[in-house]
């Protein structure tokens, strides 16, 4: 079978999921809540989303930008995508702690060292830590399903 790739990402995915009705509405409410909660700035979550997209090699995801994180500098994003976030002075200590955590999370949440988690808690507090892991789960999940739907929906 010859496949025609349909480029789906975490933004346009919802168009394909609305057919699920009530669960799609509830899912969209979670998406809005994680991006608007006050504990982790949307710009930091956008860095996480793009880092996860890079780790998944999800081109359609990498090509989009979340409107809620418009303040994020495009040069900083490109530095992130070149994996320079550890040394680039444009990244704050808080952003580095979160991006480091995100990479461990991507590999396997069981493998996250206490020190890596504690650095996030030191910067974001306990509520911020929980808000971050909730957001990572739903952002990563949406990227994964968008990639799957790119194959299902041709």
């Amino acid at each position, binding site marked *: *079978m010859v*496949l025609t790739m349909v480029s789906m990402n975490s933004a346009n995915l919802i168009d*394909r*999921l*609305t*057919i*699920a*009705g*009530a*669960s*799609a*509405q*509830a*899912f969209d*409410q*979670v998406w*809005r*809540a*994680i991006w*608007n*909660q*006050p*504990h982790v700035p949307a710009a930091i979550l956008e860095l996480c989303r793009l880092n996860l997209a890079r780790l*998944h*090699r*999800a081109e359609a995801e990498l090509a989009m930008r979340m409107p809620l994180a418009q303040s994020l500098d495009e040069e900083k994003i490109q530095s992130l995508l070149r994996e320079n976030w550890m040394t680039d002075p444009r990244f704050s200590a808080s952003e580095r702690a979160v991006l480091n955590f995100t990479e461990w*999370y991507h590999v396997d*949440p*069981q493998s*996250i060292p*206490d020190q890596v*988690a*504690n650095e996030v*808690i030191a910067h974001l507090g*306990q*509520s911020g*830590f*929980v*808000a971050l*892991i*909730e957001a*990572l*789960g*739903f952002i*990563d*999940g*949406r*990227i*994964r*399903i968008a*990639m*799957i*739907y790119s*194959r*299902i929906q041709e």
Partner: protein
Amino acid sequence: MGTVARVQAPQGNTGDPIRDSALGLVPETVDPIAGLNRSVWRSSPVRPALLEIVRLRNARTVNCQFCKSVRYDVARRDGLTESKVDQIRDGYEQSALSEEEKLAIAFADAYLHDPKAMTAELAARLKRHFSAAQLAHLAIALIAFNATSRCAVSIGGMPDNLPITEIAAP
């Protein structure tokens, strides 16, 4: 995995496992997440036993002890026996599970391991077997199961083993 929880759950006792967990530390998201969990079980075009198979496949892969120990009452009433649960493991392709159940596990595995590697053949089988609404619901359920179980693992403090416990669907 740490043996001590990295954050302390609020002291609530609402009887809702999501609200009473550490997720309760973020009031702005806990209600939407609890609402999603409710919709996944109450508004499903997919039978509960099939949803539970997908949830348990995720729990096994993520190694969330809490998630592995739970059985939803509606899934048991729908015919999900422990003998069937035992077959949600490596080599499930050769088990006595139905074709629909094996296909749901394959869908979960594509999500859990390498979404980019999902084959055209699996995509075609999924489209043949499930309606668009069923597939969308399975996708949403899988994200919800996976995100919450990875939250539990990331928070840490999970026991090595827990007894199997039946709980009521929300």
